[in-house]
C-alpha cells in the first residue's frame, strides 16, 4: 500500500566550496560571482558588499552580519532548493564543467568531491602562472573557512581541524597530468575528458545529516552500476542535464522515490535545482539478509543486488602490517636539509608479502618546498619516487605559498612472514624566506608526522593505510627554527641604504664633472699649442 507519510523530508543544506581567494596586483576587472538561494527558509546568503565589489558579506538571517572579507570565487550546491550562480560577463564561460563525485565505498564515511574544469583562458588558470600574484596562503584560507564553517554548520576540508584528512588537498590549481589525491581510494580518472590544462579540487567532510541520503544513493547506484565504486552524480555542461541523484528506500516499502538534479547553464547563469519526484512501484524479494532482487512493476526490469565484495578482495588489512619509527629527523643546517625517516615494518601474517610499495605521505607547511627536478634526478640515481600533488612555485616566499603534500614511494619490497624489515628514506627539503620578525631572530616551520600506506601483490595493488605498532610519545612533528629578517631595524636599514646609494651616485657625478672640466682644459691647451 502506498504510504505518503514514509517520505523523508530532507532539511535544507547549503554546502559552500571555497576556492582560492586572490588579489591581483594589476587593475584587472574583478570577477564577481553572486550566490543567492531561492528558498526562503535558507539562513545563508552571500551578498555583494555595497562598498567594495571585491567583498562578499556572509549574512546569517538569525545572527546578522558575521564577517567581511574578500572573495573571488564561491560555488554552492543546495539540496531542496534552487541555487543560481550569477557570473559577470567577463567570466561567463570561466567554469567549463563541474563534476561531482559521490564516494560511498564506506557508508560510514561518505564524501562529496568536486572537480572544477576551468577554461584555458580563465583567470583562475592564468593566476597560477604569475608567481608574484598575491593569493591567500593556506593558513589564511583556514581562517576564512573557519568563519564559514561556523555559519554553514558543515565541516569543510581542508579547513576542518577535526578531519582525519582522508585524502590530499589542493588549495591551488594543479595541472591535470599531476595525480589527483586519492591515496585512500584508487579511482580511475583516465576516462574523464578534461580539455583545460588545470583543475581545482576540494572535498567536504559530510555530517550526519547527509549520511542517510548517501547511503540510499549508494543503494540506488548499485541498482544501475553495480561494478562502479565511484558514481558520477552529475556534470554541469552547456546543455541541460537531468540526472537522478538520490533515492529513498525502505526494504518493506513498495516504491522507490527519486530526487532529481537539474543543472542548466546559460550565458550568464548556472542553475542547479533539486526536484522531488514520485517513484515507480517496485517489488522486492529478500534473498538473504544482504541480498535483494528488485522488480520494476512498470516495465518488468529486475536487478539482483548483492553485498559489496570490495573489502573481501583485500588479502591483507591494516592490522596485518605495522611499523615503528626508528629515526625521524631533519639533517643538515640552514635552508637546504634532508628529511630522514628510518622505520621498521613488521609483517604479522604467516604468509609473505611481495612486490610491495611503501608510501610516506608527507605534510609540509607553506615554508617548505620540494624541488621536483632535484627529486627526479635523485630517483634516476636510485632514490625513491617522489610525487608532488600540487604545482609548487619555487620562487614564492612563504607568505604567498600554501601547504602541500608529497608522497615518497619506496618500491620492490618483500616482507617476509612474521619478520620485520628496516627501511630508510631521505627526502631533500628546502625552505622559503618567511616574514621578517619584530622580536625573534627566527620563525618556525613544521613537518608533520607522515601517513604511511602500503600496497602489495596480495592487496591487489590497493593502497592500504598502515599504523604504528604502538604510539610513541616521542614521535612528534618536527619543529625547525629558521632565521628571518629583523623588523626592529627596518627603518634604519631603509635610511642607510638610501643614504649610501645617494652618496655613491653623487661621488660618481662629481668625478665625471671634475674629470670633464680637466679634459676641457687639456683640449684648450692643445688648441693653444
Amino acid at each position: 500500500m502506498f504510504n505518503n507519510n514514509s517520505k523523508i523530508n530532507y532539511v535544507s543544506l547549503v554546502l559552500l566550496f571555497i576556492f582560492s581567494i586572490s588579489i591581483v596586483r594589476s587593475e584587472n576587472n574583478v570577477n564577481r560571482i553572486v550566490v543567492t538561494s531561492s528558498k526562503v527558509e535558507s539562513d545563508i546568503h552571500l551578498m555583494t558588499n555595497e562598498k567594495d565589489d571585491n567583498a562578499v558579506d556572509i549574512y546569517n538571517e538569525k545572527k546578522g552580519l558575521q564577517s567581511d572579507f574578500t572573495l573571488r570565487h564561491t560555488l554552492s550546491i543546495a539540496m531542496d532548493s534552487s541555487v543560481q550562480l550569477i557570473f559577470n560577463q567577463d567570466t561567463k564561460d570561466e567554469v567549463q564543467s563541474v563534476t561531482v563525485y559521490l564516494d560511498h565505498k564506506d557508508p560510514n564515511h561518505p564524501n562529496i568531491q568536486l572537480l572544477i574544469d576551468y577554461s584555458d583562458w580563465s583567470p583562475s588558470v592564468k593566476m597560477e602562472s604569475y608567481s608574484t600574484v598575491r593569493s591567500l596562503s593556506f593558513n589564511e584560507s583556514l581562517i576564512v573557512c573557519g568563519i564559514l564553517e561556523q555559519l554553514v554548520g558543515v565541516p569543510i576540508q581542508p579547513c576542518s581541524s577535526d578531519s582525519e584528512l582522508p585524502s590530499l588537498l589542493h588549495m591551488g590549481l594543479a595541472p591535470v597530468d599531476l595525480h589527483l589525491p586519492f591515496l585512500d581510494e584508487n579511482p580511475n580518472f583516465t576516462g574523464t575528458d578534461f580539455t583545460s590544462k588545470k583543475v581545482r579540487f576540494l572535498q567536504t567532510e559530510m555530517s550526519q545529516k547527509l549520511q542517510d541520503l548517501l547511503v540510499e544513493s549508494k543503494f540506488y547506484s548499485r541498482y544501475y552500476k553495480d561494478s562502479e565504486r565511484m558514481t558520477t552524480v552529475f556534470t554541469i555542461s552547456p546543455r541541460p542535464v537531468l540526472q537522478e541523484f538520490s533515492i529513498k528506500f525502505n526494504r518493506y516499502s513498495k516504491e522507490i522515490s527519486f530526487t532529481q538534479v537539474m543543472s542548466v547553464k546559460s550565458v550568464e547563469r548556472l542553475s542547479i535545482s533539486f526536484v522531488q519526484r514520485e517513484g515507480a512501484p517496485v517489488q522486492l524479494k529478500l534473498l538473504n539478509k544482504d541480498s535483494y532482487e528488485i522488480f520494476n512493476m512498470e516495465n518488468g526490469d529486475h536487478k539482483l543486488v548483492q553485498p559489496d565484495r570490495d573489502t573481501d578482495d583485500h588479502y591483507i588489512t591494516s592490522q596485518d602490517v605495522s611499523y615503528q619509527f626508528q629515526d625521524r629527523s631533519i639533517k643538515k643546517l640552514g635552508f637546504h636539509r634532508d628529511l630522514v625517516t628510518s622505520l621498521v615494518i613488521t609483517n604479522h601474517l604467516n604468509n609473505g608479502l611481495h612486490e610491495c610499495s611503501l608510501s610516506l605521505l608527507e605534510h609540509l607547511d607553506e615554508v617548505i618546498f620540494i624541488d621536483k627536478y632535484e627529486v627526479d634526478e635523485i630517483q634516476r640515481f636510485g632514490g625513491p619516487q617522489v610525487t608532488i600533488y600540487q604545482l609548487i612555485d619555487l620562487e614564492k616566499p612563504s607568505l604567498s605559498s600554501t601547504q602541500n603534500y608529497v608522497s615518497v614511494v619506496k618500491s620492490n619490497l618483500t616482507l617476509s612472514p612474521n619478520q620485520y624489515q628496516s627501511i630508510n628514506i631521505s627526502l631533500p627539503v628546502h625552505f622559503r624566506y618567511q616574514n621578517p620578525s619584530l622580536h625573534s631572530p627566527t620563525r618556525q616551520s613544521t613537518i608533520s608526522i607522515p601517513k604511511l600506506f602500503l600496497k602489495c601483490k596480495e592487496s591487489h595493488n590497493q593502497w592500504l593505510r598502515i599504523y604504528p605498532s604502538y604510539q610513541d610519545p616521542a614521535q612528534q612533528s618536527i619543529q625547525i627554527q629558521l632565521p628571518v629578517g629583523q623588523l626592529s631595524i627596518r627603518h634604519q636599514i631603509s635610511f642607510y641604504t638610501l643614504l649610501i646609494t645617494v652618496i655613491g651616485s653623487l661621488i660618481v657625478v662629481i668625478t665625471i664633472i671634475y674629470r670633464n672640466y680637466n679634459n676641457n682644459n687639456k683640449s684648450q691647451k692643445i688648441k693653444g699649442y
Partner: protein
Amino acid sequence: MKPQYNYIKAGWNLTKLSFTIGFVVRLILIVFSEWQDANMLVKYTDIDYVVYTDASRFVVEGGSPYDRSTYRYTPLLAYLLIPNILVHKAWGKLLFVICDLIIAFLLKSILIKRFPQITPKALLISLACWLFNPIAINVSTRGNAESVIGAMVLATIYFLYKKNLVLASLFYGLSVHFKIYPIIYSIPIYIYIDEIYYHKRPSDYTSLSKRSFKHILSNLFTSNRMKFFLLSASTFIILTVAMYLIYGYIFLYETYLYHVIRADNRHNFSVYFYQIYLNTPVIESVKDLVTSGDGINNLVIALASFLPQVLLLLVVTLVYYNDLEFCLFLETIVFVAFNKVCTVQYFIWYFSILPLVIPSSSLTLFKYIGLFLIWQGTQGFWLFSAFKLEFLGEQTFFNIWLSGILFFLANIFILVVFIWNHNPIVISKKSNTTTPIQFNKKIK
C-alpha cells in the same frame, strides 16, 4: 698598405690562436658539463638551461613555452633551442659558445674601426679579456643565454660604427625585445647619431667635442635619428605584438612585467636586498589584507631608490655620448649596481663591453688586476655571509646587508677609477690624423 692588426710572434698568429683556444676551452667545458650532469648529483648546468629546454619541448609539442613554470624570456629563445629537443640537448650551450665567439669577432671589428691606430698587442689584450674571461666562459657553458643578448648589443655598436643604420636599428630592436635592459642605451645612441653621422668616421668621435645642450635640442629630430628610432621601435613592436597575439598577456607578463615588478626577498648581491625584504608587507591574517599599510611611505622609498640611478644614467649620457663604447660601459655598470636584483649573469652585460674601453684607458695591467680583486673580494665577503645563512642557518642578514653595501661601494670605486683614467681621443685640427695620447706613450 693596410695596417696589420693580428699579433704575430715567432711565426704564430696569436690573435687567431686566442680565438681557437677560447673556443676549445669552452667545448671542453661543455663536454665536462655533460659528464658531470650525468654522473653527479651536483650539476654543472644552470637550472635556467633546464627551463629553456623544457620550454622548447612544449613548443615542439605544440604548446606554449610559458607552460613551463618560471620561463621568463621571449619565446624566440625557446625557438632558438628547439634543436635541444630534436638534435641534442647540448645544442643550446654550443649556440651560446658560438655567440661568445661572435662577440669576440664583433669586438675585434669594432676596435679596429674605432681605434685604427691600435697596436696588435693592445688588440690581443682587449680580445683576451673576453675570450679568456672565466666568468664569461662559465656562464655560457653552464647554459645561460646572456651571450645571445650580448652579441645583439655588440652587433648594434658594430653596425653603428660601420654606418649601417638599418642593421644597427634592427639589432637594437631585437636586443631590447630579447631582454629589456638594453633600453638604457637608447638615449646615448640617439644623441650619438648626429646630423653629420654619415660624413664622420667612427674614430673622429670624442667626448672632448661635445655639442651644447641648445644645439642638441635644436637638432633632436634629425632624419638619421628618426630613422634609427623608427626602425628599432618597429622591430621591437612587431616582434612583441606577434608574440602577444600568439601567447597572450602571459607573454608580456613573464617576459617584461615580471622583471619590472620583481622584488625577490631571497638574498642577492643587490644593495637593496634587505630593505626590500624588510618592507615586504607582513600579512599574517585576513585583516592585514584589508589594511593598506604604509602605502605612501613605500612610494617614497621606491622613488628615492630610483632617482640616483636615473641621475647617474643621464649624467653619463650627456658627458660621454661621443665616446659611445665608454658611455655604454658606464651605463651598464650603473644599471647593474643600482638594480633591485643583482645576480652573476648580469655581470656579463658589462664584461662584454669592457674590451672596447681598454684602448682608451690609461689603467695598467696591475691596476686592472687590482680592480678585479676588489670586485671579486667584496663578492667573497658577501658569499661568506650568504653561505652561513643559507647552509648553516645562522642569522647573518645584517652581515649580508653590509656585504651588499661593500660590493656596491666597490662598484662605485670602479666607476670612479675608470672615469678618472679615461682618455678621450684627441683630434688635432692642424694635421688630419688621429693620434691617441696613450698610444704615443706606449710607443715610447
